[in-house]
């Protein structure tokens, strides 16, 4: 402590500013504090000086904890992703490496504190830490898994912008001392791919203009084997998804994310690899470390370094493969030479990769009921994130007592791109089996296969009759048929979306209730939070749609059909949303499916507005 004890016994002694601050801060030893306390009892000027410090402290605490807390903007996502991030982290294999990585920061600083007591240990530890952490490496801001998922999502978004997208990628692959140029066309819609190996990088072979050299090098087969044996996609060698597949199937790993200007590099090293101890090059070797570099602005992968090892008869050999992107484009299939895919091979897409992951995990362990429930909730949340729990008829079924326990996701999707998006969202979640088809698949298989899954009753199912019971009033209000149709479409769209959220909310609520009835231990807090986030999102969606519907309908119906009155019903959320939809369809399309609508259009319109108001206020209450 920084006190001169002698000064404390002088008769004319007064505490210094430092003494008073430390006293106010409670940082003095008890005897020193007692001495100052005693002095302040008898010395008015010093008491006032001490009180000034207390006042500043009081104001600071008020300012920061009350005023600042009340005025800082709330977190934009309201912490809604914490549960899923925690859950994803819990699904990852435990890694001594990452624990060490976090620990080393603390160990390093405490080493410095204790330097006098253990200089040798300090030097050894610092040398070791220096070897593990490259100089200048920044600590990760996002986890490797998060970045890879975002990168995959970003690439999928690019695909969605193009009709029947074909990915053209020109890569330089360096294996040992040899370097090759490889061009790949991947037809995402039809799951086929085509490759070419121009002899020089200046070849003008691009986008299907097959005119250049195309000699597949003998090393290509080895490279293909290497990628396959390490769970990476040869058809899509430079991708976050392929990288993610590899890292999810290795043993204990250590990871680092470093941003350097316009590039972010994810580095992964295996600490204790899975698989046989001995592995030869002809078996592909073992990938022991990899570095994937992404472009910061769009998280697109631009290069990759793969460090491989072989172990045969106790001898170790190393080799390195570098993959760098020279060109990348997403073009519509129609822009290519029609013959380019004539001799194409089926592509090993994300669906196959995903199944391979699931099989590997299923074979390794028998999951507990709680683990299966976690997987189910992770799958539901993945579907929720891509909006597949709203309109698509997709079911998520937990089969805890089946011969092969797992979670089955079954459904029909409107397009191949959507199917890929869903498969991508589900990839990495353990114990998942998927049976997803597109509408095109079903039409090829014949009409009898069209209803194999639990279907979400579509509010627009069936062709609504063209005549609305209030057609005359609407025509009078809008003056022309086109405006009436636009109004009806807008209202129908809001009602349809409202009902989609209501169905999703109901299914989830029922499932949540069933899980809780089966035992709270089945649901971990992170899964519970996922459910609550999804339920909240659906309530928010219903609220937005109900408000939109109200804005669309109210001015028209009030002025042309009814006068609003107060209403007093207390139907549950789903019933009310369902009633709103039925009334909307009846009023605007004369939908006869709504048997319970009232006798006259005026009464139906009035009830619709009342129900909408009640639905909005009910949702408001549950916010």
């Amino acid at each position, binding site marked *: 402590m920084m006190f001169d004890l002698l000064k404390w016994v002088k008769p004319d002694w007064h505490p210094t500013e430092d003494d008073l601050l430390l006293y106010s*801060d409670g940082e003095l030893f008890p005897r020193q504090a007692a001495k100052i306390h005693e002095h302040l009892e008898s010395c008015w000027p010093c008491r006032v000086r001490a009180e000034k410090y207390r006042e*500043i402290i009081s104001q*600071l605490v008020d300012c920061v904890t009350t005023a600042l807390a009340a005025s800082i903007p709330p977190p*934009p996502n309201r912490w809604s992703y914490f549960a899923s991030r925690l859950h994803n*982290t819990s699904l990852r294999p435990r890694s001594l490496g990452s624990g060490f990585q*976090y620990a080393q920061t603390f160990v390093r600083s405490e080493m410095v504190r204790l330097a006098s007591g253990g200089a040798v240990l300090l030097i050894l530890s610092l040398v070791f830490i220096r070897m593990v952490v490259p100089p200048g490496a920044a600590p990760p*801001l996002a986890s490797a898994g998060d970045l890879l998922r975002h990168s995959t999502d970003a690439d999928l978004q690019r695909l969605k912008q193009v009709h029947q997208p074909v990915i053209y990628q020109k890569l330089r692959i360096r294996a040992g001392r040899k370097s090759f140029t490889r061009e790949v066309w991947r037809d995402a819609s039809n799951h086929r791919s085509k490759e070419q190996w121009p002899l020089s990088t200046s070849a003008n072979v691009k986008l299907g203009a097959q005119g250049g050299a195309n000699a597949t090098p003998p090393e290509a087969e080895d490279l293909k084997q290497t990628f396959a044996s390490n769970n990476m996609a040869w058809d899509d060698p430079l991708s976050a998804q392929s990288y993610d597949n590899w890292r999810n199937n290795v043993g204990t790993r250590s990871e680092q994310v470093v941003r350097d200007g316009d590039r972010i590099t994810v580095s992964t090293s295996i600490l204790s690899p899975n698989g046989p101890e001995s592995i030869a090059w002809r078996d592909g070797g073992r990938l022991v470390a990899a570095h994937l570099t992404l472009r910061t602005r769009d998280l697109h992968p631009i290069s990759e370094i793969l460090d491989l090892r072989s172990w045969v008869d106790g001898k170790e050999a190393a080799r390195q493969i570098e993959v760098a992107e020279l060109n990348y484009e997403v073009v519509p299939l129609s822009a290519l030479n029609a013959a380019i895919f004539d001799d194409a091979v089926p592509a090993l897409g994300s669906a196959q990769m995903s199944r391979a992951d699931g099989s590997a995990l299923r074979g390794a362990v028998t999951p507990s009921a709680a683990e299966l429930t976690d997987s189910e909730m992770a799958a539901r949340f993945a579907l929720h994130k891509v909006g597949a729990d709203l309109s698509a008829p997709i079911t998520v079924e937990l089969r805890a007592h089946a011969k092969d326990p797992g979670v089955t996701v079954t459904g029909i999707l409107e397009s191949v791109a959507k199917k890929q998006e869903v498969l991508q969202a589900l990839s990495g979640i353990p114990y998942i089996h998927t049976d997803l088809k597109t509408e095109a698949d079903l039409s090829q298989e014949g009409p009898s296969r069209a209803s194999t899954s639990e279907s979400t009753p579509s509010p627009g199912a069936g062709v609504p009759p063209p005549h609305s019971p209030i057609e005359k009033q609407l025509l009078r209000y809008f003056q022309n048929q086109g405006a009436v149709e636009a109004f009806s479409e807008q209202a129908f769209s809001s009602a349809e979306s409202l009902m989609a959220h209501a169905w999703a909310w109901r299914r989830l609520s029922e499932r949540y209730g069933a899980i809780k009835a089966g035992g709270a231990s089945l649901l971990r807090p992170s899964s519970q939070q996922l459910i609550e986030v999804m339920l909240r999102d659906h309530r928010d969606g219903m609220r937005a749609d109900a408000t939109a519907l109200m804005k669309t309908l109210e001015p028209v119906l009030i002025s042309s059909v009814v006068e609003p009155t107060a209403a007093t019903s207390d139907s549950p959320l789903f019933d009310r949303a369902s009633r709103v939809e039925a009334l909307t369809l009846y009023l605007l399309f004369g939908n006869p499916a709504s048997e319970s609508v009232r006798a006259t259009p005026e009464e139906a319109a009035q009830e619709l507005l009342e129900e909408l108001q009640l639905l909005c206020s009910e949702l408001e209450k549950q916010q």
Partner: protein
Amino acid sequence: MPTDHYDGLHFGVINMSSLESDMTGEEQITQLFERLRDGVYRYVMTIVGSSGIAEEITQEAFIKLYSFTRNGGHVSHERAWVYRTAHNLAINEGCRKQITSASVDWDWLSKVRPDPDPDPEQRVLQQEKYARLRATLNRLPAQQKQCILLRVEGFGYSEIARILDVSKSTVGESLRRAMKRLKVEHDV
């Protein structure tokens, strides 16, 4: 001594002391997150000045704590551990975006809400007081400001020293200078 409960942070084997021992790691972290997140978020906001980044960093700090303990690490004082991790992440983000202490203006302080139901005169006085305080805090060097904010969050000198990775005497000196300046400029 205020440092006693810090022994585990050195190298020790300590469980999540203030939490229920029969809870799973996820439950413990979730509970801890719900208890501490607002304070951590507020502190990080004062460094990075962006709610989105502050939210991300706050969550990341708790995820790191979870990963650390799950992979065999032991933490005695999880609150200080989280603040320290969040501080490092925030400083790193600050360097990345070239945010300096002076450039992070506490804009939101100019919109401070008064306490519930003060009379108009008190409200004006309070707003002026907070505005002056804000101006003084903004002029403080980063380390002094961080010491003050962590003190306000209830950390002792030793805890602040470990969070900021400086010596305890540095913390004392920073606080002394900051308080002296606040006292002079604030004219209490």
